[in-house]
Every structure is written in structure tokens, then in C-alpha cells.
């Protein structure tokens, strides 16, 4: 059946935004908006700001670690930096930037005019933004009456009982706890919105099995946020009760359990990895087919693999605790569940490979970063298999090998996918193309820096270097490796600056993009760039997974094959 509704034809009516209005009115507009696109963009800007902050913290740490027994930073400052770096990057960069893309793209891709709960959406954004500011306010406000410390210095997983009042006086840990708690409230609100929107707001004809993979994966991600963030948020309340009302959940001096906190944290912490990496998969599922000029290979398997990863990821958390002494039965179970998750993950890689195979690959900037993603995610997955074997983890756990492994996931895979997504959807958001030459500079600087830093970071871990040490002894054979690791940070910082410059300058000077610069197939490319506030003048009707393919190829309808 052919698509009958002329969804390519839209009323060309661009909004009178910005130009000629007083700045106060523009700011008021952004603060009070409930438009999913504006909220999405605010999430992204806020995350980019914290990305630069967290990156700066990383650079300070790498200067300190470039040579042994360095005195650039005191141990107290170093410990605060890695705590803030980890907390910032996970809660105030990773989650908000992915929520931002989800907010912006999901309604456009499923043919809806907004998210299901626009006011909840605005609330979730502002509460998360407040949480980030609260965390950083600790630098000013945390010393309190005790005048002890400022920013939190308990590590991003804040193991008990280091967070107890006796080991962490002052208020720095309270700022951390409240920041995480409020960010959790915002995340749960946004996840609720994402799940409801996807389940209830799809346009006519878009059955679940015709939905693009991006909303499919965000559906899984939203479900995971419910299950994962709730225990973390509960644990923050328990910790606060311990600190102020004399309860003993984690107070080992009074019979509490340090291991209980680890369980609470990692039942959040591991699904959280998938909360972050699933949207990266989602971007790849949209970008790789368009730049290979082929439909995604094995759509049903991709959906099944995503849902499978969602479920299995809830049963692997104690692989972060192989060294806690769970005993052989517990260790064996979590070895198995962790290794099993590599099967659906492998299916995804193979399906991307098959999508590329026989296609016509166009190495535009989004695809360059996607290629980086594919190789780096492959390596990250393989080092993950090494860590899943508990005895190997008894050596590698909490060493720099683990730090290298999860940065391979977070930077090599997720951040590369996010860069790809920026280059891919920037024309839709702004109506302008990003500068290709600068994109090449960004890509090459960043990929060289990434590999200098994170390839070499594996080796000190194999040579016995634990993480979270502010300095190290000179006789351990770690010096040259750490110097190389630190030098890579310079390239990554330079690449990021080029990227930010490109984001800004292309907004003013970029070529006009038009509706559909990539000759793509999903609904967001059927409307003007930037999209009008109501998104779709006429609600679209779809009859396949690639509605724009059907329009462009009336003789070769997707619906014939699905």
C-alpha cells in the first residue's frame, strides 16, 4: 500500500522567534517554554556546559598524573576532582544530553506534536539543572560549621562508610547526596514522559513494528531508568537518614552494612551504563543506514537485542563486586549473566556490519564518527569480556584497566555517537549545515587524542596501578605510560574546542540545509528545518518503517517487504 497523505507538503510558516524581540522576552520564552524542542535544546546546552567543566577537571588530573610524585595538586583537591568529574559526566552530561536528544527527536520521529506531558518535561529539566548547580555550589557552601573540605571527595560511587558523618564531616557529602537525589527525580520524570510519549502518541499507521529504532531504544532506556534510578534515589534518602537521624543502614560501627550500599549503588550503576549506551546505539541505528544507503539489517533482531539487553542488564550488577568476597556461587552467577549480555550486544555489531555490507558508504562527518564508534565499541566490548571473568577481574578490578575500559565505552562509543548525532541532526535543528572542514579537524584531533589517552591507559592497570591515586611511586614502570596518557588529553581538548567553535560559527555562516540534506527516510526530515513549534502541519500517516523512502521510491515500497 502506498502512502497517501502528502506529508512532504507542509505549510511553510516559520515562527517569528528571536528577531526584533527584546532579549528579556526571549529569555522569558525559554524559561517558561514547554515545547519539547526547546527543552531538548536546553538539556543539550546544559550538558555541553558541564562537559567542558568535567573535561577541565580531567585535564587537571592528567597534569597531576603526568609524572610520579607530582605536587601540582594536593591529595584533597585531586580526590574532589575525580569525584566531581565522575558525578558530573554521568549525571550532568551523559543523562541530560541523551534526554535532550530524546526530547527533541522522539516526537518528530513518531509524528507527534509534543511530548505526552509538556509541563512535567519542563519540571524535569529544571530540577535536573538545579541539581547540577547544587552539586557545584558545594565548592562555596559545603564547609559549613565544620569548615572541613568543600566539594565532595568520596568518589562517584561514594562507598560506605566513607560517607558516614565520622569520616566525612561538613556538608560536602550532603551536596553530593542531594544533587544525585534531585537529578534522579528529574530523570524519572523524563523517563516517564519518554515511555508514555512513545506508547501513546505515535501517528496513524505507526504500529510498534513500524516505529524507527531510535524511539524503540529510548523506550527500553526509559524503562531501565525507572528500575535503576529508583534504588539510587532511595539509597540517597537512607544515607541522609544515617548522617542526620542516626539510622544505621550503612553505619558499620553500629552493625550496618557497607556491602548493602554497594548493592544499592550498582543495581543502579550497571543498568545506568545501558541507559547511556542504548541511545548511542539508537543514533547509530539511524545514521549508519542513511550513510550506507540501505535499510537497517535485521530490524526485528535489533529490537529484540535492545529489549534483551534491557532485561539482562538488570541482573549483572555484582560484576562490580567480584572482589567483595561474594563467594563462588555469587561470583559464578554474575560471570554468567555478564557474559550472556555480550550475545545481544554482538548481534547489534553484526547487524551494523551487515547494514554497511553491499551499501554505498558516504563518509560524511556523521558517518566518520559512526565508524569510530564501531571500532571503539568493538574493543570496549572485548575488554568487557575480560573483566566479566571474575578471576581476571580480581586482578583488573579498580585498576587503570577498568578506567580505560569504561572510558572506551563512555568516550570511544557514547561520545563518538553523540558527536555523530550532532553532525547529523544539527541541520534539522538550525537549518544550517555544519562546516565539513572543521568537522574533519575535530574528528582527527579527537580520535588521535582518544587513542593516545585510552589505549595506553590499559597498560598501567595490567602493571598494577590502581585508580583514584593522586600520585604514584617512581619505580613501578608506570611513568612513561602516564605521560603518554596525559599528552592525549591535549588533542582531545583541542578537538572539542574546534567542535564548539563549529557549532557556534555554523549557526551564523553555515550553508542552508533545507528539509532533508542527507536524503534520509524518517519523519523528522519531512518538515522544515528548523521545525515549526507545532512540528507537523498535517499529522502524517505512515505505512512502513521508512515513510520517506516510500515517497521517494513509489515503485519500490518498503511496506512490500516488512
Amino acid at each position, binding site marked *: 500500500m502506498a502512502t497517501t497523505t502528502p506529508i512532504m507538503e507542509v505549510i511553510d510558516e516559520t515562527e517569528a522567534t528571536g528577531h526584533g524581540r527584546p532579549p528579556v522576552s526571549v529569555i522569558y520564552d525559554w524559561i517558561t517554554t514547554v515545547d519539547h524542542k526547546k527543552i531538548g535544546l536546553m538539556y543539550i546546552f546544559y550538558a555541553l556546559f558541564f562537559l567542558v567543566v568535567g573535561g577541565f577537571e580531567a585535564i587537571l588530573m592528567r597534569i597531576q598524573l603526568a609524572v610520579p610524585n607530582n605536587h601540582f595538586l594536593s591529595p584533597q583537591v585531586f*580526590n574532589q576532582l575525580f569525584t566531581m568529574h565522575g558525578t558530573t559526566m554521568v549525571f550532568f552530561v551523559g543523562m541530560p544530553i541523551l534526554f535532550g536528544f530524546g526530547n527533541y527527536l522522539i516526537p518528530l520521529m513518531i509524528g507527534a506534536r509534543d511530548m505526552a506531558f509538556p509541563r512535567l518535561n519542563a519540571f524535569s529539566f529544571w530540577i535536573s539543572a538545579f541539581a547540577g548547580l547544587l552539586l557545584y555550589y558545594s565548592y562555596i557552601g559545603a564547609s559549613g560549621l565544620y569548615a572541613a573540605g568543600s566539594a565532595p571527595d568520596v568518589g562517584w560511587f561514594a562507598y560506605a562508610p566513607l560517607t558516614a558523618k565520622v569520616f566525612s564531616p561538613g556538608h560536602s557529602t550532603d551536596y553530593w547526596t542531594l544533587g544525585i537525589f534531585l537529578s534522579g527525580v528529574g530523570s524519572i520524570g523524563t523517563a516517564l514522559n519518554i515511555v508514555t510519549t512513545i506508547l501513546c502518541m505515535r501517528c496513524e499507521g505507526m504500529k510498534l513494528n513500524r516505529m524507527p529504532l531510535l524511539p524503540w531504544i529510548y523506550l527500553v532506556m526509559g524503562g531501565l531508568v525507572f528500575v535503576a534510578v529508583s534504588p539510587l534515589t532511595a539509597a540517597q534518602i537512607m544515607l541522609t537518614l544515617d548522617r542526620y537521624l542516626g539510622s544505621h543502614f550503612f553505619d558499620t560501627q553500629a552493625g550496618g552494612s557497607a556491602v548493602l550500599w554497594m548493592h544499592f549503588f550498582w543495581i543502579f550503576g550497571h543498568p545506568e551504563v545501558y541507559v547511556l549506551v542504548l541511545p548511542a546505539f539508537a543514533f547509530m541505528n539511524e545514521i549508519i543506514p542513511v550513510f550506507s544507503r540501505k535499510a537497517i539489517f535485521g530490524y526485528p533482531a535489533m529490537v529484540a537485542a535492545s529489549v534483551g539487553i534491557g532485561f539482562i542488564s538488570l541482573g549483572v550488577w555484582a560484576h562490580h563486586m567480584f572482589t567483595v568476597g561474594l563467594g563462588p556461587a555469587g561470583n559464578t552467577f554474575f560471570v554468567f549473566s555478564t557474559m550472556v549480555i555480550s550475545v545481544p550486544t554482538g548481534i547489534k555489531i553484526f547487524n551494523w556490519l551487515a547494514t554497511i555490507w553491499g551499501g554505498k558508504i558516504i563518509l560524511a562527518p556523521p558517518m566518520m564518527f559512526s565508524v569510530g564508534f564501531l571500532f571503539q565499541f568493538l574493543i570496549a566490548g572485548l575488554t568487557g569480556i575480560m573483566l566479566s571473568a571474575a578471576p581476571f577481574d580480581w586482578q583488573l578490578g*579498580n585498576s587503570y584497566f577498568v578506567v580505560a575500559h569504561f572510558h572506551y565505552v563512555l568516550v570511544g562509543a557514547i561520545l563518538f555517537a553523540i558527536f555523530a548525532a550532532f553532525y547529523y541532526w544539527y541541520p534539522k535543528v538550525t537549518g544550517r549545515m555544519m562546516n565539513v572542514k572543521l568537522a574533519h579537524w575535530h574528528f582527527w584531533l579527537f580520535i588521535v587524542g582518544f587513542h593516545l589517552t585510552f589505549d595506553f591507559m590499559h597498560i598501567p592497570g595490567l602493571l598494577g596501578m590502581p585508580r583514584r591515586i593522586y600520585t604514584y611511586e617512581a619505580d613501578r614502570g608506570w611513568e612513561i605510560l602516564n605521560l603518554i596518557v596525559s599528552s592525549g588529553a591535549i588533542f582531545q581538548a583541542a578537538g572539542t574546542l574546534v567542535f564548539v567553535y563549529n557549532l557556534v560559527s555554523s549557526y551564523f555562516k553555515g550553508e542552508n540545509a533545507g528539509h532533508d540534506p542527507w536524503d534520509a527516510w524518517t519523519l523528522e526530515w519531512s518538515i522544515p528545518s528548523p521545525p515549526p513549534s507545532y512540528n507537523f502541519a498535517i499529522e502524517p500517516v505512515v505505512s512502513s518503517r521508512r515513510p520517506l523512502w516510500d515517497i521517494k521510491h513509489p515503485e519500490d515500497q518498503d511496506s512490500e517487504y516488512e
Partner: protein
Amino acid sequence: MSSLHVTAATGTLFSPTSIFDPAGTPSHSIFGLSMLILGVTFAIFLIVGGLLLYALLRYRVHPGDSEREPPQIYGSTQIELSWTVIPILIVVMLFLTTTRVILGTESIPKPKQALDVTVIGHQFWWEYRYPGLGVATANELHIPVSDPSQPTPAYLTMSSADVAHSFWVPRLAGKMDVIPNRVNVMWMDPKEPGLYLGQCAQYCGTQHAKMLLRVYADSPADFAKWVEQQKQPAVTSFPGNAAATEGQRVFLHSACINCHAVAGTVANGRFGPDLTHLASRETLASGPIPNNAENLRKWIEDPNAMKPGSLMPAMHLNDHELDVITAYLTQLH
């Protein structure tokens, strides 16, 4: 600067703490497993990475290619089944091998001749007690070499006095966390005498970085000699050494004894390291500082200058007191 030399650590492969240079049974079985997994994952990397690279080069579009879209292929049940089943088989193989190593380390009976050691983690140092032998020491663990025909592994029963720590000496065994209100056990059986290095592997506060581990594997004769010496109470009379005699008096009348123990005297504090045989140890402050008179004096004068964040306070002793206490402590062989 230092008059005594810290014994050079053994270890050959790039680093004295390499996991690829195992010197005991647990680390050796992990080494075997890690080689298998590295081999399998490297093979997967070559195959999948090679196919990716081939596809990217082969199917890259070139200027002048036709504008036609390539054939659209939506999937293939046979191919997808094969790349589901083959990984499952690899997972099963790796899982079974891993399980064997887990059981071989965690579920084997303890030999009769095993040595029991109690390990207590503190911010930021290690307390060691030998319950069968009546020895208490700190920061430098002595265990006997274990002969495979008559194994004498050291069984470490571990807990923490404050926050979570982790005991990691890579050449001897994988790490095991040292957690308050919880008892963990690990064992190690060095085959060769020597010094094995490591350090705390769980973030435990300000000076996590300088909570180093030193394990001395002694020949059975050396170990017996060491035990015999450590069992003795501390020296209490210093004929002909007026400074040490005065130092002992100052020490025993100052707040030092609230935290430190010296067996055979009234000093029986437990918060800091046992000092009964301090002079027999090669390092101070849990490993980073060579133990000599000059460093010891500087350490007592202001521990935070040498190890910022150390919980030992500066006692505001005058120069004379510092001199005599140092003279006393250097006599505690």
C-alpha cells in the same frame, strides 16, 4: 639521603607489580585464564574488525558512481541465527573455564600447614597479627615461601577498622576487599623468596595513594628467625645510650602511647601501628618512606608534611624531644 636502602623489589617484566609475572598459585591460574581470554577476544577483534574494515573500503562510494540506491536487504534468518549461536558457544566455553578457576581459588581445602594472618585495614596503613605465633606488626607482611610438595600458604583473614580498603599484590594473587563489619579470606603461596609490592586498591580517603603493600616471602629458616625475633618484647634498657633512655621516658609519658603499642611497656594503643620492632622494618608510613633516623625524625615532627592527610598529628615536640624519641625508636630492633 637515606642511610638504609629499601630492598629492591623482585619482578622482571617492566614492573614489580605486573599481573603477567605471576609468582604464586592464585596469580598463576589467573594468568592462564587471562591468556585464554586475551587469545579469544583478540581473534574476535581480528575477524570482526577485519570484516568492518573490508566493508568500509570495499563499499565506500566514489565520485562518478551511479546515483542508484544499492539493493535493499532487510535481513536473513540463517545468517542472524549463526551469529547468535556461535557467540553463545564461545560464552559457554569461557564461562566453564572461568568457573573452574573460581572454584580452584575459592573452594579448595585449607592445607594443615597453612599460616594464619589477621589483616586489618586502617586509614592509611595495614595492621598484621599472627594469632598462632603471638606476633603483631604493621605495613610489612612476612610470610614463608611455599614449597609445592609441602604447601604452606598464608591465609589472610581480613577486616577493616574504618572504611573499605582492598588488598592487592598483583604478583601473588588477585585483590580482595577489606571491608568493615565483614570478614574476607584470601590466600597466597609465593614460590620464590623476595619482596612483592602492591597497594590499597579501594579508595579509602585522602591518602589512599600512599597505602602501599609490602609482602616479604622468606625462606622457611629466615621466616622462623623473623618470628623468633618479633615475638620478643621490646628492648627496654639501653646501657650506655642516654638519649635512647631519655627518649623512652619521653615516649611513655607523652600522648604517643594513646595510639601506639610497644610490647613490654605501658604503651598499648591500637589506633596506630605497633612499634615494638619498628627498627626492624624497612619503611615508614605504610611504604613510601625509607626507615632511617633522619626520615623518622621528620615524620614525628610533622607527619602531614610527608604524607598529607595522615591521621597521625604533629605532637609539637621540641628539638631535644624529637632527637631523643628518634634515638629511642631506632633502637627498637
